């Protein structure tokens, strides 16, 4: 006799539920141990003071108040919040470059896959190896980048001297990159752009571009739209969900970024100019053993990311075209 859905025997349903719990059990155990309970523990830690040696002390909001008054964190050039936000300015630039490259590579020409692979190379090898490579490239005296810049500069200086205008010697004005607090952030941004513009973002844009119907372009051409109008009204509009996604992910990642470059390349210096929020958390927690203070900074970071995400969700409907 066929049973209706609602009258499945209780024992059978119980067995199915048991199977369900057993299937998620291993993951839930790990999730509890390494995600959800640590989140709670970290919240509690952020209200206490603990160096891991003496017993922890409950200090209420003292960590947050200290963070609020932390001049290293908030000072305007080269404060750690400023550094983080400054380096995030590269995110829209990187996304636009990725779109630009994707539009070019999306043409039906031979060899595009080879170019795509070559552009993808820096993002695949990203890590300590390429960071050390960039320290070498950015070496003020013998690095490749300053060598190229010096050649360009000297050529212009020569031209200028021909009309009687004497420029300073290159050695006197060359950027010291990672050893100069004004050049260190641009140096890291340059490295970031090199590593990211042909990476994941470009691949995602290529996928998005392949989803744009060709008829739209043909129709626009018939209506007399020029190349710029076709890009702006069709391509840009059709890939706007991807742009939005990349932008949101970029901002969320950007606030948490900069740790590895600071740890490997600069030690957060010179003069704190490359210490980002995440590197400051690392210093506090694992170098100075201020677990409570580090947790409060981590929660501050979480708050910023949360607010930005909610803000983005709220405004996405207005700006993005979902086909």
């Amino acid at each position, binding site marked *: 006799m066929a049973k209706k859905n609602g009258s499945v025997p209780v024992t059978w349903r119980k067995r199915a539920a048991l199977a369900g719990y057993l*299937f998620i059990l291993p993951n839930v155990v790990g999730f509890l141990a390494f*995600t959800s309970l*640590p989140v709670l523990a970290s919240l509690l830690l952020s209200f206490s003071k603990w160096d891991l040696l003496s017993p922890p002390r409950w200090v209420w909001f003292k960590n947050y108040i200290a963070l609020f008054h932390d001049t290293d964190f908030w000072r305007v050039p080269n404060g750690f919040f400023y550094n983080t936000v400054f380096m995030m300015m590269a995110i829209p630039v990187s996304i636009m470059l990725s779109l630009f490259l994707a539009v070019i590579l999306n043409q039906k020409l031979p060899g595009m896959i080879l170019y795509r692979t070559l552009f993808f190379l820096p993002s695949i090898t990203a890590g*300590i190896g390429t960071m050390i490579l960039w320290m070498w490239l950015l070496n003020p005296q013998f690095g490749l980048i300053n060598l190229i810049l010096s050649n360009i500069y000297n050529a212009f200086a020569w031209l200028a001297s021909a009309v009687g205008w004497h420029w300073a010697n290159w050695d006197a004005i060359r950027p010291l990159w990672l050893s100069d607090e004004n050049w260190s952030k641009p140096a890291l941004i340059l490295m970031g752009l090199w590593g990211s513009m042909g990476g994941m973002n470009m691949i995602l844009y290529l996928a998005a571009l392949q989803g744009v119907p060709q008829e739209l372009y043909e129709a626009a051409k018939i209506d007399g739209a020029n190349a710029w109008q076709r890009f702006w009204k069709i391509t840009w509009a059709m890939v706007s969900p991807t742009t939005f996604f990349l932008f949101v992910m970029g901002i969320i990642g950007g606030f948490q970024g900069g740790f590895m470059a600071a740890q490997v390349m600069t030690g957060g210096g010179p003069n704190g100019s490359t210490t980002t929020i995440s590197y400051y958390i690392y210093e506090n927690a694992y170098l100075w053993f201020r677990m409570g203070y580090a947790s409060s900074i981590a929660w501050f970071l979480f708050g910023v990311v949360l607010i930005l995400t909610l803000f983005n969700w709220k405004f996405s409907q207005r700006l993005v075209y979902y086909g």
Partner: protein
Amino acid sequence: MDEQDKLVHVRKRIRVSTIVTYLFLSALAVSMVFPFYWMVRTALIDPKDVFISPHRVGYLRWLLPESFPKIDNFTQALKAVPFGRAYINSILISACVTFGQVFTSSLAAFGFARLKFPGRDKIFLAYLATMMIPGAVTMIPVFILTSKLPFWLDDAVSWLTHTRSVIFSSSYYMFHNTYVGRPLGLDSYFTLIVPGMFSAYGTFLLRQFFMSVEKDYEEAARIDGAGTWAVYWKIMLPLSRPAIATLAIFTFMGSWRAYMWPLIVTFREDLMTVPILVRFFQSKYSTDWTLLMAASIMQIIPVLIAFIIGQKYFIRGVRIGGIKG
């Protein structure tokens, strides 16, 4: 103007723009690839040739110095720190993390996608909610937990047996003359592997994929008397091979290049993964560019090989999941 002329005209116009495109792309490709050439060149020359300038020796000698190629830097780097051990560590850790994540994620994803039990959607929502929590938040308590765990366990054993126990916190564990780290805590494979074996993201990714798998196969198998495990093992996993391969390759590469966690939990050279050992090497030879480039190349090569092997899945993974490496 007849048709033939028109065609020629169009073809010519295309060619100019195509040439500009190729020139631009090639210039960009050079700027992407030349640093890698520079790396290889620096790693393969004598240290005395590092600081030569093209104005003095000419561009050809600058690109390919007299001592090029010379593999001494690699042998010296290999002698200075235990690279072989670091590769074994990295492979072991990445393999275990990948296997663990694929296994636990696919089990849970199957549960969330196909089985019915009370509270299922609430638990899944909790998973989703935690995905936006910065890693820095959870890393501090996990660090404290894993570093204190061996001492807590030893205290418990001491209390139970009324003797002083150092089973878990002892740092001298050898296996056939090989130092294998502590069983738990800092400098242990446990700490390097286990916290990485669970992923809310992997669960989410596989659940989305499992939801899209046709239910017909599953129902047919059920009618033939297959149990839940058989449905998972013999139907769901084989049908989801692309998604699982994608998750596996991303997890493997993510684990291979993991930096912060291995950095804070390893102190002994024997337990270091490749990136951490390269960092250690860098702090020892901070201005020896030939050696540093040799060490950096040794970090990059396995990543390149993995990418070449798994490129297809990698690119597809980026597309379906929008995963950021």
